[in-house]
């Protein structure tokens, strides 16, 4: 294994490999943000939350950074300003104005009962943000005399940060002797109907975890495979209506982020995610739900093979280390990233579905935490995205959409769950 040597001078923190694409592609309809939040039974006191945030930043000083545009790459540098606390607005995961946010790459928001963390993807991924949120919530609860507990998977406040926490694991796993992984072709994209704008409209579907788990067990697959299959099934129906000629139908590929920490046992607080791209090809014929489940399951299993992931890492880090890429100035690289990111990224999949997994709530807090949410910002090509998180006895499936009135995908998804024997409870910030 080759260890990457850091040539960065003091005060310059290089972005991790998968974060490189996010700053140059940040634009309207490409906020590259996500949100994790917890709703408490108690009302939130902003002053206490501010103290909890400061305590978290003392422990995780690598989150106290701001983004800068260098001559060759974007880079992070220590940020000595104080973070701002925001009152929650009517929609999640919008664009973050770094200037207004004192340079920080994350925002902590509070509602009447909610503590939310919105994060720009260049800082960390969903699992990393969840750790930050757990730390803020546990410290808030301690300061508010609700309970003195530590969440499973959160970092201990009294421990010194380990070097793994702020190192780029992709550089450690890079091996130039492995061949790069081939990319897939372009996928089907649902056009949708009606107007759209960059306000993130949310439909939140809550299901009973026990019922969902039991239904998945009957099918013989995991919750992620099941939900991906429902999404693929719904998209197959849409494409069937949109493209009557079977031969002309495009493959339906889903982008499913995989948490590589569980595969490589690397406890980093930076991005450590790659995307599995399971899918079906409706040009070959109509798939039954069982066929979709089997295909998605096999694709997911193949994608999680560490050797295949190493090959993907070789492709990504290899591209970063290419001489042309290294020495081309940002002024040239940025527009090219913007123009090519669609064909190399968003165009390859029909939808994104991210499952953050089950979040274990400490017993002492079970009565205090009423709800958890995870939201992804949609993109311009795929205007609806799904984010899933489980807590206590619930699983929350959040649909974020740019469409003003079109809720067909959400409706068909929920209808499928209902018909499959999983009751759904729906809430939304939509007004029409």
């Amino acid at each position: 294994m080759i260890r990457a040597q850091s040539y960065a001078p003091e005060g310059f923190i290089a972005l991790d490999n998968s974060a490189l694409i996010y700053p140059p592609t940040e634009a309207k309809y490409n906020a590259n943000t996500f949100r994790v939040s917890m709703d408490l039974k108690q009302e939130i006191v902003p002053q206490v939350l501010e103290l909890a945030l400061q305590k978290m930043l003392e422990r995780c000083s690598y989150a106290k950074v701001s983004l800068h545009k260098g001559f060759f790459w974007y880079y992070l540098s220590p940020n000595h300003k104080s973070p701002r606390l925001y009152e929650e607005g009517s929609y999640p995961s919008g664009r973050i104005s770094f200037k207004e946010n004192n340079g920080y790459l994350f925002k902590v928001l509070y509602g009447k009962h909610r503590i939310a963390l919105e994060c720009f993807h260049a800082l960390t991924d969903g699992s990393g943000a969840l750790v930050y949120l757990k730390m803020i919530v546990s410290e808030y609860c301690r300061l508010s005399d609700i309970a003195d507990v530590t969440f499973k998977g959160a970092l201990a406040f009294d421990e010194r940060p380990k070097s793994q926490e702020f190192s780029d694991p992709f550089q450690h796993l890079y091996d130039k002797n492995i061949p790069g992984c081939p990319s897939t072709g372009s996928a089907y994209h649902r056009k949708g109907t009606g107007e759209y704008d960059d306000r993130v409209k949310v439909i939140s579907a809550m299901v009973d975890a026990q019922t969902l788990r039991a239904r998945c067990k009957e099918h013989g697959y995991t919750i992620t495979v099941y939900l991906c299959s429902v999404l693929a099934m719904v998209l197959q129906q849409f494409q069937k209506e949109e493209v009557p000629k079977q031969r002309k139908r495009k493959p339906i590929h889903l982008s499913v982020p995989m948490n590589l920490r569980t595969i490589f046992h690397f406890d980093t607080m930076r991005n450590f995610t790659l995307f599995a791209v399971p899918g079906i090809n409706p040009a070959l014929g109509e798939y039954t739900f069982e066929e979709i489940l089997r295909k998605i399951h096999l694709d997911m299993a193949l994608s999680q093979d560490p050797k295949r992931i190493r090959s993907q890492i070789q492709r990504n880090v290899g591209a970063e280390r290419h001489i042309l890429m290294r020495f081309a100035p940002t002024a040239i690289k940025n527009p090219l990233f913007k123009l090519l990111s669609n064909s190399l990224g968003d165009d390859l999949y029909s939808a994104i579905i991210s499952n953050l997994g089950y979040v274990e709530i400490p017993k002492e807090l079970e009565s205090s935490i009423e709800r958890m949410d995870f939201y992804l910002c949609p993109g311009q090509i795929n205007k609806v995205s799904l984010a899933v998180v489980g807590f206590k006895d619930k699983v929350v499936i959040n649909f974020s959409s740019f469409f003003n009135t079109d809720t067909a995908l959400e409706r068909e998804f929920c209808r499928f769950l209902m018909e499959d024997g999983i009751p759904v409870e729906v809430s939304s910030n939509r007004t029409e």
Partner: protein
Amino acid sequence: MAYCIQCGVKLEDRARQCPLCQTPVMLPPHMERGESEPLFPQPLPEEGTGGINKTSKGIIELILSLLVVSEITIALTMWYSGNMAHSFIPLFSTAMAALVIAMALVARHTYVAQSSTHIVLVSLYLLGLDATNRHLSWSLIAVGALVLLWIFAVFTTTGKAKAHPVWTALLLVISPLGYVALVNVVIAGSLTWFVPVALPTACVFFLGVGLFSLLFLTRNKTRIPLADIIFFSLIVVFLTFTALDLFMTHYRQVIWRLNWSLSLFSAAIVLMILLGSVSASRRLRRYFTSQHKHD
């Protein structure tokens, strides 16, 4: 607690309609709607945050990067060939070309925004080219024409123009006169022929147009025959030319006399007799119109 009768999903207590299928939630008369906390503070902001999308941003950044490279290349080439003194026009033209493409992406994609932006940019370009000798001359005439074009072709389509029709009509009358005055000032250095020639000729023209418009508007018939329109338009045109000849002769030779317009006037009389008789006689009008075929 409510359920959607279409989808079967459980809804929020406060829901007035199902967010999935927009089916209204109907409650029995004795039942009151619950007041559960909304998922997010309501209502949503009226509009999105604005800004430009990734592709447009990428194109603009690429154009700007290429602009910098091109400008450096041009400057070095001119300097190396010893023509640095003449480098302004190629450098300025390249920068303006880049700006035009970038602004086409940045400006709102509406007729008014796009055409206004481009008229401003072309005007700036012409002024810049003309300013190479540190003296503005021909570009003022060209820019004046562009402003006139904007008033007639762009401003008249805006809501502001439609809301104030009288002021807009006045602007449409005054702006061509202003342009002619500008041409006079640019060419001669002061208002020389504008007051004795252009202004009275324009007055004759507008008077003619005004009189005939009034005539048409006060008519009982809603449909004005085409022959009438041509006839009265010709009268206005011939009168204007005659006035122009008269005022120009007086301006040059200080005598009130007609010169070249006399021959024009004789041709006009023949045409006007024909059109006048067509306008006056229904039989003749029917002879010339296709909808009442003559056998």
